[in-house]
């Protein structure tokens, strides 16, 4: 396969080349690094990486579909990475987020890629960052990452995205109480979806306590009924407003730098894993922590050579 040709087609927005490129990265094909090195960095910098997260059943996919519709009204080209969990038993996965986005199936300016977590915890898959950059380089102004349904800790998307929206719905009760402990504060926007359902008002009152000021709450707490396309225009307005603010200040650049560092760390550890595995097999220490220390010393000696 000719990587130069693939890159050319990808930058022209060709669906098949985008799909191929993401697969090569996802399968850890040796060609992956050549593809990533050849991506249009200016386009990547200009794009907005938007994380959509929330518990299972809160309406993430339906809300994402609604946002696609709003973004298309503004003539944005939109990329979507929709992540679903892999089975820890078989390694297989059912990737069903796409069903809610089929209204855009024939729109050439909407590119959807479903990805399985493939053993990674934290709500993303290991290649999510690379897939985002491939889509951005293909000309997507906005790239949405829809995480797996999350609980209280799977929040890796915050580290990858420029901005993260947490989608909640009434009826989750104690789960949301527990989330208040830390996750909600670091979200850029909180959305109460299914706002026509019983319990929505109480949820709004509960969530109101997360914000430092009434003004902050006014900007960052939104209500939607995504299945009926209600509240999404305002949601996009807020997203674009925050984006402008972040780009004018230092937030945008800081987040991108932070994201770069995090993902580099992930990959470096991933690449070390097989070497560490070999050393563990050779080791029969008394305590795992001591054994780990010995391994790090041994690796240091190897690197020193």
């Amino acid at each position: 396969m000719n990587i130069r040709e693939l890159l050319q087609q990808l930058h022209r927005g060709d669906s098949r080349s985008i799909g191929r490129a993401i697969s090569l990265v996802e399968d850890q094909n040796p060609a992956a690094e050549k593809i990533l090195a050849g991506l249009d960095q200016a386009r990547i910098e200009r794009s907005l990486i938007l994380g959509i997260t929330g518990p299972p059943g809160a309406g993430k996919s339906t809300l994402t579909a609604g946002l696609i519709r709003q973004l298309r009204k503004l003539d944005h080209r939109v990329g979507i990475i929709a992540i679903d969990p892999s089975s820890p038993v078989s390694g297989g996965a059912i990737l069903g987020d796409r069903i809610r986005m089929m209204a855009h199936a024939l729109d050439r300016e909407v590119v959807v890629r479903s990805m399985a977590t493939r053993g990674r915890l934290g709500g993303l898959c290991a290649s999510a960052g690379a897939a985002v950059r491939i889509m951005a380089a293909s000309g997507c102004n906005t790239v949405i990452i829809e995480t797996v349904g999350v609980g209280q800790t799977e929040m890796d998307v915050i580290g990858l995205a420029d901005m993260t929206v947490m989608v909640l719905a009434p009826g989750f009760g104690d789960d949301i109480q527990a989330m208040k402990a830390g996750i909600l504060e670091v979200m850029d926007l909180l959305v109460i979806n299914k706002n026509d359902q019983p319990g929505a008002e109480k949820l709004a009152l509960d969530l109101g306590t997360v914000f430092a000021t009434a003004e902050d709450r006014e900007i960052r707490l939104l209500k939607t009924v995504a299945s009926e396309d209600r509240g999404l225009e305002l949601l996009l307005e807020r997203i674009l407003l925050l984006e402008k603010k972040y780009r004018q200040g230092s937030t945008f650049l800081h987040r991108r730098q932070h994201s770069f560092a995090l993902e580099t760390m992930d990959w470096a550890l991933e690449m070390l894993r097989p070497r560490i595995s070999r050393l563990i097999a050779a080791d029969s220490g008394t305590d795992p922590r001591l054994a780990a220390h010995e391994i790090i010393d041994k690796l240091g000696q190897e690197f020193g050579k």
Partner: protein
Amino acid sequence: MAQQYRVLIGKPGLDGHDRGAKFIARALRDAGFEVVYTGIRRTAEEIAAAAIQEDVGAVGLSSMSGAHLRLFPAVIEALRLAGAGDIPVLGGGIIPDEDIEPLHQAGVEAIFTPGTPVDTIIEAFRSACCKHYRNRP
């Protein structure tokens, strides 16, 4: 690392009986496949576009309404028009014996009927994916 197989399971046309499609999707998942499921009532063009974006190794179609002679070849044609005629298409459902040969002629890689053992179906997807990944440019 072994190649992770990705397939798409879809239902073209107006028939909403999706138990068969969902059963196959789950069986493939349990056999280690990543299965993109596109739901019911899709056009041939929608299924082809999704298969291309998702870079799958094979497309599985289900039909219970008797429209398979029209719908399965329509998906093959849609894939071909979109420049992805190399992605193999497999089909299953309520398909009379006399329709199997015409479907093979139209390019459907394998046909499954209510009596087909699930292991046979999984093997057929595995071999279709394997061939596709090996031969692709």
